[in-house]
């Protein structure tokens, strides 16, 4: 199937995809969260008829628009990068993966694109109510687009509703409802959107805190904070709940990812959760070194989170790589063996069919079907290859969780002092509060690092490693475009930040 794997090229393709996705994800969570806040502010304006709420909505919309433009710019490349960088992937799973992308275009992008123009230029051209409707449609469109792309991503992490067709050598969809309603898709969508709502809320808190510290636009800042802090608090609770659900799904469907981000090498019953720690980076799979230089462990909690049962067994990296008969876990070495049989019998089937040797083709096909669930493992060279980078996964996960736990408390604090009418005096809260937006972005990016680094080496979990998913390009070509996009996106990011800061310093219009 694949003769020579140029790992250098594959890693550049990975790096490019990661870089463009991370740039895109600077802007997306803000779009997802701030779009709803703009809609809420405008709804209050329409309900009360108070012009101050209108000016307030328009101010946040202006910042939304600046962010939206660069989000669109960094997004288009991602849709086509599946083809440019992962051409084999696009063919092998296009029958399933293409559908959500096309549906995203039809049902979501046009909502955003059409009503965005009304939101920005329609104040004098359409009725108040239709304008409000349009703002809600932009928010709905953005979040619907997240739904479809996250359904697609979830399917890569937990491939369901499909079957491999040996004649076309691709996976084909059998049931789209299974794809859409898979528990991984639901937890991914709810977790990614709720955490993005936090990012939108904290963006408002950061800027409003700055105004309060400077004693500017005080009333507008306070009004913005009330709505954003409530939205942020509710979203934090939802993000906590859905995050727990995500970990549970990982334990069920991607136990290696869970073991990696917990730094768990030897599985145990009643496994403890590492609350914080310093990873021993010289630790290799299978050796006797301690995985941590230092760690704080909460007994039994990992088993509870992973299996909803405190005494249950959570497999570690060693169990998953080398197998654990007692717990009935098949090792990667055995899976590789079965996978190699699947790959070679598929080759035999293809050749025999071409030569018209029906009997041999049938027998090869039977062998293939018996081993097809391990197809992806047939492309791995060693069992250790199935282990994702532990340190990156561990740190990203813990940064996300620690920051994520902080956000509801911060929102509560803002609400408390607003209620007491003393927020402007709480410099100890407002000063660090200016950095909340950046902290939320770090948490959000870290979440994606857990999800995507933690599933390596798989493009499709267990079925297709990235080494096979790649396009037939040289590493030089991808390096060139990597630097091209780094350069362009960095320039655009600098422009965006400068424009944004200028608009913030100009501030909302006062009556």
């Amino acid at each position: 199937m694949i003769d020579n794997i140029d790992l250098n090229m594959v890693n550049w393709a990975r790096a490019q995809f990661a870089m463009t996705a991370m740039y895109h994800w600077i802007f997306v969570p803000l779009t997802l969260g701030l779009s709803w806040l703009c809609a809420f502010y405008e709804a209050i304006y329409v309900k009360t008829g108070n012009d101050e709420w209108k000016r307030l909505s328009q101010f946040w919309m202006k910042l939304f628009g600046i962010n939206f433009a660069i989000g669109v710019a960094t997004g288009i490349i991602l849709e086509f990068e599946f083809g440019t960088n992962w051409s084999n992937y696009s063919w092998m799973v296009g029958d399933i993966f293409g559908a959500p992308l096309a549906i995203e275009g039809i049902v979501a992008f046009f909502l955003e694109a059409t009503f965005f123009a009304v939101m920005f230029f329609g104040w004098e051209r359409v009725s108040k109510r239709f304008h409000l409707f349009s703002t809600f449609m932009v928010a709905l469109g953005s979040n619907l687009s997240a739904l479809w792309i996250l359904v697609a991503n979830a399917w890569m992490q937990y491939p369901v509703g499909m079957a491999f067709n040996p004649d076309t050598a691709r996976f084909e969809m059998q049931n789209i409802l299974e794809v859409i309603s898979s528990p991984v898709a639901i937890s991914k969508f709810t977790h990614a959107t709720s955490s993005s709502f936090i990012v939108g809320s904290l963006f408002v808190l950061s800027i409003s805190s700055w105004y309060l510290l400077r004693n500017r636009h005080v009333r507008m800042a306070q009004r913005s904070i009330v709505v954003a802090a409530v939205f942020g608090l509710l979203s934090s609770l939802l993000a906590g709940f859905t995050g727990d659900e995500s970990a549970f799904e990982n334990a069920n469907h991607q136990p290696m990812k869970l073991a990696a981000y917990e730094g768990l090498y030897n599985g145990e019953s009643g496994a403890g959760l590492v609350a914080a720690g310093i990873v021993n980076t010289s630790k290799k799979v299978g050796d006797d070194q301690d995985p941590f230089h230092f760690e704080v462990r909460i007994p039994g909690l990992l088993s509870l989170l992973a299996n909803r049962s405190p005494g249950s067994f959570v497999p570690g990296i060693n169990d998953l790589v080398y197998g654990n008969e007692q717990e009935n876990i098949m090792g990667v070495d055995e899976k590789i063996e079965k996978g190699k049989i699947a790959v070679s019998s598929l080759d035999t089937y293809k050749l025999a069919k071409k030569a018209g040797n029906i009997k041999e083709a049938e027998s090869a096909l039977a062998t293939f079907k018996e081993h097809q669930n391990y197809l992806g493992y047939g492309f791995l060279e060693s069992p250790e290859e199935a282990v994702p980078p532990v340190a990156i996964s561990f740190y990203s996960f813990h940064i996300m969780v620690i920051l994520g736990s902080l956000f509801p408390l911060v929102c509560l604090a803002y609400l408390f002092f607003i209620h007491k009418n003393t927020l402007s005096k709480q410099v100890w809260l407002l000063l660090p509060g200016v950095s909340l937006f950046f902290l939320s972005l770090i948490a959000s990016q870290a979440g994606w690092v857990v999800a995507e680094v933690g599933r390596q080496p798989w493009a499709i979990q267990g079925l297709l490693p990235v080494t096979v998913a790649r396009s037939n390009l040289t590493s030089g070509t991808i390096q060139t475009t990597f630097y091209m996009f780094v350069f362009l996106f960095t320039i655009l990011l600098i422009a965006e930040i400068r424009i944004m800061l200028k608009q913030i310093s100009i501030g909302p219009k006062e009556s």
Partner: protein
Amino acid sequence: MIGNLDLVTLQHIWWVLCSVVGSLFLFLTFVQGGQTILWQVSKNEVEKSLIINSLGRKWELTFTTLVLFGGALFAAFPKFYATSFGGAYWVWILILFTFIIQAVSYEFRKKPNNFLGAGTYEFFLLINGSVGLLLIGAAVGTFFTGSNFTLNDYNFVTWSHPLRGLEAAFSLFNLSLGLFLVFNARVLGSLYLINNIDFKPVPELEYRLRRACFSNFTWSLPFLLYILVSLLLMSGFGLDENGLVAMVKRKYLANLIGQPWILLILLTGVVLVVLGVLRCTKNMKSSGIWFAGPGTVLVGLAIFFTAGFNNTPFYPSKVDLQSSLTIFNASSSHYTLTVMTYVALTIPFVLAYISYVWYAMDKKKLGTEELGSDAY
């Protein structure tokens, strides 16, 4: 109901749907045309801002239609998506690059402290409208002239030309198609602007736009003629009854004779474009875009239909004929096409709300009073 349709019917339906989206994109390239015509017709900052603000209310529709074109091809013909994007790497990367720089330019151009200056963002718009469209035209041209790829037994692509798709721009036919798209977009751009802007404070701009419409139409004609004559005379790629691809003399002429309705669509399209231009330059009306726009859609449909129907590989390979992609061998499974056809039932609804918003937002023409601090 849709599930009862056979695979071949669904493949035809999806080629029609992808063609419709692609052709609507060609209509909406009036945005790109406007971006390049900006340099020709605006003589001062007010005129420039009027044009950019008029286009700025529509650019996302064009952009989104292009993205949907990619998405629809991915869902319906994944082998094309995999082969072309992974194979003709450079041409697609450069096209995308021009759309990335377009996407920020409207929003950033006039904002204070924008780092690169208004002139740079206007230049980005020019690049998108010229290089971007030219390369799209060249890429579509390969539907007729063929590309340099082979597919192995697992349908993995190998591209045999070092320019990875950019070589398409060095064929006279492809280049002509690209240049035709650029000039036609400029015709559409001037027609759209004439329809959308209130010229009372800037009467000379209207005059210059009408003149530009005519001159760009004149420039587009030789390229259109070259494409049409070449199409009728050239050898094309044909699929025989054994499923083998071979070069066939006057294949595309045969396609038009064999399917005269495509010829009818093509001729109607050309006539509508001419009518649109005449309304603008002779009758001094502002509704030319509503003739030339649909005309462009019809011309686009005729091009895509000629490329894909009548047992014609729509993405042929010059270096290995049997690797060529047809709507039959490149499509998704019966199940996926069925699901996607149900999804496509929402398209009329989408078109309806786009039309309604377009109507509501453009009832009143764009005047200079809207070029305040919130404008592009």
